[in-house]
């Protein structure tokens, strides 16, 4: 009787201890992440002013802005998306529609998942060997290609997943009225999966807008305004990297402000992307 009671007591005690540890773990994790975001807001906000968006990156010790870096990031992100998205959507379409049960799809899915989490610096090295070395110089277009390669696996994954969710009855209805397969895919499957595919593209934008490593030795950096795609171009992440590691206070402040801009962009895009799919789930 007493042993049973003490066993019960010890089990309850053990449970209380472990559950407390779990709560502490959650507390530590959330507090740690809150600390990072808090520091980012605190240090970044103090440097936000109009000059950040209207002036070029300054020489050491001077005041200035991040205009050319912001512009470079936007340009390379847009080109990366324009190049990467069609390839990703088409590949995802093959995997979910034409080749749903083929051997090729299984292999591509496996390889795509590996590409999805492959170190981005490796992609940078690849594009360096592929484009920068043959061309003989760093260029914005090489940076954009590196970003496009990062876009593809994200879009492939979401496109395939979303097309797989489209009920087969819809496709059968399309086929039954005599529409060929590609018309069924275009007018039925794509339309049904549209918000999911757009979510994938938004997530891809969120991913590449903060990528630094693949740009380091493809687009390099540029202290001045440049819209030449065949020349080195500044980007927000690379500028942050350079400025943060510098000994100049103005540069460090700009790095914090740039970091805040990137984080808000990425968080905003992710929340928007999630709200798109969230609405669909509710419906």
């Amino acid at each position: 009787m007493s042993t049973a009671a003490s066993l019960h007591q010890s089990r309850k005690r053990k449970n209380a201890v472990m559950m407390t540890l779990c709560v502490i773990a959650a507390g530590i994790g959330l507090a740690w992440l809150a600390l990072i975001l808090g520091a980012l807001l605190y240090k970044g906000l103090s440097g936000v002013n109009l000059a950040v968006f209207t002036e070029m990156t300054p020489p050491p010790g001077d005041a200035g802005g991040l205009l050319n870096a912001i512009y470079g990031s936007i340009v390379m992100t847009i080109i990366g998306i324009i190049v990467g998205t069609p390839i990703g959507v088409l590949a995802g379409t093959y995997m979910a529609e034409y080749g749903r049960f083929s051997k090729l799809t299984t292999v591509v899915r496996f390889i795509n998942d590996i590409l999805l989490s492959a170190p981005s610096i490796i992609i940078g090295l690849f594009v360096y060997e592929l484009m920068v070395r043959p061309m003989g110089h760093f260029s914005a277009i090489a940076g954009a290609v590196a970003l496009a390669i990062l876009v593809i696996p994200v879009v492939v994954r979401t496109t395939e997943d979303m097309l797989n969710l489209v009920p087969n009855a819809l496709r059968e209805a399309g086929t039954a009225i005599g529409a060929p397969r590609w018309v069924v895919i275009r007018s039925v499957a794509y339309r049904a999966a549209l918000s999911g595919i757009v979510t994938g593209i938004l997530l891809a934008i969120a991913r590449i807008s903060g990528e630094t490593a693949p740009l380091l030795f493809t687009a390099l950096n540029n202290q001045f305004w440049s819209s030449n795609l065949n020349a080195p171009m500044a980007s927000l992440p690379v500028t942050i990297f350079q400025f943060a590691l510098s000994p100049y206070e103005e540069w460090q402040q700009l790095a914090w402000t740039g970091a805040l801009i990137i984080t808000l962009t990425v968080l905003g895009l992710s929340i928007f992307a999630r709200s798109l799919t969230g609405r669909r789930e509710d419906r």
Partner: protein
Amino acid sequence: MSAVQEALPAIRGSRDATVRRFAFTDAIFHGLTRAAAILVLVLLSGVAISLIVGAWPALSTFGFSFITTESWNPVTEKFGALAPIYGTIITSAIAILIAVPLGIGIAIFLTELCPRPLRRPIGMAVELLAGIPSIIYGIWGLFVLAPFLQTTVQPFIISVFHGIPGLNSLFAGPPYGIGLLTSAMILAIMILPFITSITKDVFDTVPSVLKESAYGIGCTTWEVTRRVVIPYTRIGIMGGVMLALGRALGETMAVTFVIGNAHRISTSLFAPATTISATIANEFTEAVGDLYTSSLVALGLILFIITFLILAIARYMLMRIDARTGA
């Protein structure tokens, strides 16, 4: 009636033409999507081939000793990858040791303990944090974490372990703030959301019947988690941990900020060191001479092989748990 009979061949002919046109465009679209799918395969093999080609000068010059020598000297052009490989493995291993218990703890909290209205917001916050670019973690590590460790934590730890053999070399000064342990901590906080969200997802695959029957015979929450949930999801958790390990091994920017970029192997966790990705990020654009560049590409090749294997194992494990829940 005769008019219809006269018109029939024409109708049939135009229908045949339409069907042929449909078949033709369909074949084109089919081919296009197939080509895009094959391009994904070509990309990965292209990465492997270009790295091997780029690394070949270094590998043929140094041979196997490339991965067994510590010296990294651009002046005499003697390159060995041991120090970066050591730094990569040690930082990732410590990061996993910190992040896995924390991540699983948070997942248990979210699935078993958290009040229902808070579950979705906290779960979503965790997923959003997984998407924050690594450079943000790097800049925080450099300006906030490293000075704090340097002035407060490290001197204390050094003084505590000063007289204890073994531990005193593991925690030997001077406290720089940056170094192996700082990098590992930054990596841990980076992969934490990742481990948490995967663990939470696989915890959700446990059939409620299993959990309810365990509760029904009087098990405590911890016993249900320990004896039912974790054994049931073991493969999935392992897959998530491997995936996080793959991330940690290849993580570049966060580590580059706080590792110190020193090409030597030190027993102290407080010493500056380097990792494969940090070495490439720091030195690639400044590398002069083909052998130097090639050695850096060879480092990239080693990283590629290590992460490819880890990620392949991780995906294999996660595919197995997917297959089970799908069945």
